[in-house]
């Protein structure tokens, strides 16, 4: 018997190129499950990805319209798609390097514009595809290939950036919280606006090896569970206690006008003025 989500995948392409124990498959499964649960017509889904392990997995292997493009540029490509055809369900797959580093301004501006798309960020806190270099999300002190004496920089909080920039929906979970992650993606897919869902995912090959001295996925998943604190819990902790913790939950869920829809409304108005 075939996997119930196999209808969304290209079975003849399997196995994927990703490493054993990689969490990206879990995140992809949560996305496909959410699409299935919401009964979204897969032929009207456009997946756009930049560069990284997540991009390699999320395009091609998925039997939907997909674009595997340039590092960091998935957001503007998706913006062009959504503005031309607002009826499409646009999904941007991005990574912590793709969206937090090279594509940072595109990410922030897509959120600011509140353009209707789901941005699903696979955050493995490291550059996996290039072989384990420091990322803007890598914890301080971590030894990586490009921080051989320890990372001196402070990690970036992608969810608070999305919130500040004006996203309609923002949530973070880890691959140790697949049910919550699926529920958040479902909710995000239902929003009319820019939704950002960050999935903290395990990279046993590099992140596990460097930070936990373990290449076992289960060790990292347990570490995720130990280090995760809910938004409510996090409010009771001081910054020192919060350092190194993964704050999980739903940060933003608001309703505001979406860009492509506003543009279409503006086109219909004779005077061209809108409020």
């Amino acid at each position, binding site marked *: 018997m075939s996997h119930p989500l196999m209808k969304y995948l290209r079975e003849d392409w399997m196995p994927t190129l990703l490493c054993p124990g990689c969490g990206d498959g879990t995140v992809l499964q949560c996305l496909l499950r959410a699409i299935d649960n919401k009964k979204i017509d897969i032929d009207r889904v456009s997946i756009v990805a930049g560069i990284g392990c997540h991009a390699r997995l999320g395009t091609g292997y998925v039997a939907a319209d997909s674009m595997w493009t340039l590092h960091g540029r998935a957001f503007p490509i998706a913006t062009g798609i959504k503005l*031309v055809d607002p*009826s*499409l369900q646009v999904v941007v797959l991005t990574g912590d390097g793709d969206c937090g580093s090279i594509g940072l301004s595109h990410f922030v501006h897509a959120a600011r514009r509140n353009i209707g798309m789901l941005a699903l960020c696979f955050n493995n806190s490291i550059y996996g595809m290039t072989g384990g270099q420091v990322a803007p999300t890598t914890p301080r002190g971590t030894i990586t290939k490009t921080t051989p004496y320890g990372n001196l920089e402070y990690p970036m909080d992608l969810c608070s950036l999305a919130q500040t920039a004006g996203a309609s929906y923002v949530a973070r979970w880890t691959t140790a919280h697949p049910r919550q992650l699926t529920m958040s993606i479902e909710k995000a897919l239902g929003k009319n606006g820019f939704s950002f869902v960050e999935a903290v995912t395990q990279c046993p090959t590099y992140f596990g090896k460097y930070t936990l001295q373990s290449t076992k996925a289960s060790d990292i998943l347990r570490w995720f569970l130990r280090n995760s604190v809910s938004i409510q819990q996090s409010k009771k902790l001081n910054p020192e206690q919060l350092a190194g913790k993964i704050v999980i939950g739903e940060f933003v869920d608001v309703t505001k006008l979406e860009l492509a829809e506003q543009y279409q409304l503006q*086109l219909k108005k004779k005077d061209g003025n809108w409020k």
Partner: protein
Amino acid sequence: MTQVLRKSTLLQGNEACADAAILAGCRYFAGYPITPATEIAERMASRMPEVGGVFIQMEDEIASITSVIGASWAGAKAMTATSGPGFSLMQEGIGLAVMTETPCVVVDVQRLGPCQGFATYPMQGDVMQARWGSHGDSRSNIVLAPASPQEIFDLTIEAFNLAERLRTPVIVLSDEIVAHMRERVIIPRIEELSLESRKEAVAPNSEFKFHKVSGSEISPMPRLGSGNRLNIVGHLRTEEGRVSMPSQNVPQVAFKLLSHLADKITTAEWEARKIKTLFAEDSRTMLISYGSTSRTVESAVKEARRAGMKVGCARLVTLWPFPEDQLQALLKDVDHVIVVEMNLGQIVDKVREVVGPGGRVTHVPKIGDLHATEELLGCIKKVAR
């Protein structure tokens, strides 16, 4: 609204560009303000809503070109416009358009460079960048060089036709002088134009066949959301349009794809590859130029003719792919060639290559201004005596 009557009007080059794009069916424009190209974006911002199209000001030029690629795959004829500094940023996206065979038009209103240079001064400094700017032996860009607002109008329409027909980015290489010049432009009725429309027709679920790589053949391009489950990749792809895997013979796969991308441009029969000439029949000396520079070349040549000198000129309307054969035929019986361009020497090397060893080629460089007619006359007299 759509133009109904043929009319003659005074237009700035940049305005003519925007109007032509809309007439050609452009329904998506993304750009970022930059002198001396901004008027194109401004006109698009006000005119796009009239025709139900999309205008958006993006956060930078990288976002502009990449959103154009997204828009094109969503089914719209799409365009962006910029100047040198922005054009440099766009090279990454142009490479993606070449690799994914995405029709789009990029207008580069060249200005004095490098770097910031001087925003309000002209230059023809991006000739090589327009062809070779993107990495990885990307050579599918078609580059057209207009010399007047009317020609900006005509070549912008041509650019859309070529982009759609050949599924490739087409670059209109304008410059500050022609872009800011105001001249009479004759706007044809839409029925007078032959406009290329995209071949989208593919049965749904015909997985992958859309992106076949075969010789110079151009595949149809179904839009996103049409049930074809497209996999559009900037990565190397096989003849079946599938992502190439390390287990395959990558060098062979790559050679086929790169040849396909190059061949579809060079073997295509398209009319834009042309050279416009003046007094070419009996000239012993020929001046070669393109874009705004050709305007004073033309007046210098006319004056030299009045003085009885056997001088003519040729203006390259298509810069890339370089019209080698036409130029070779044209220069076969010429004693001396003078290349006039507004830079320190870009197209001159290509002309030298065509003329061959032993041929006499003089280069007249200039930065930030047109050559004066007297300056060119002096040069003609020196070689044509």
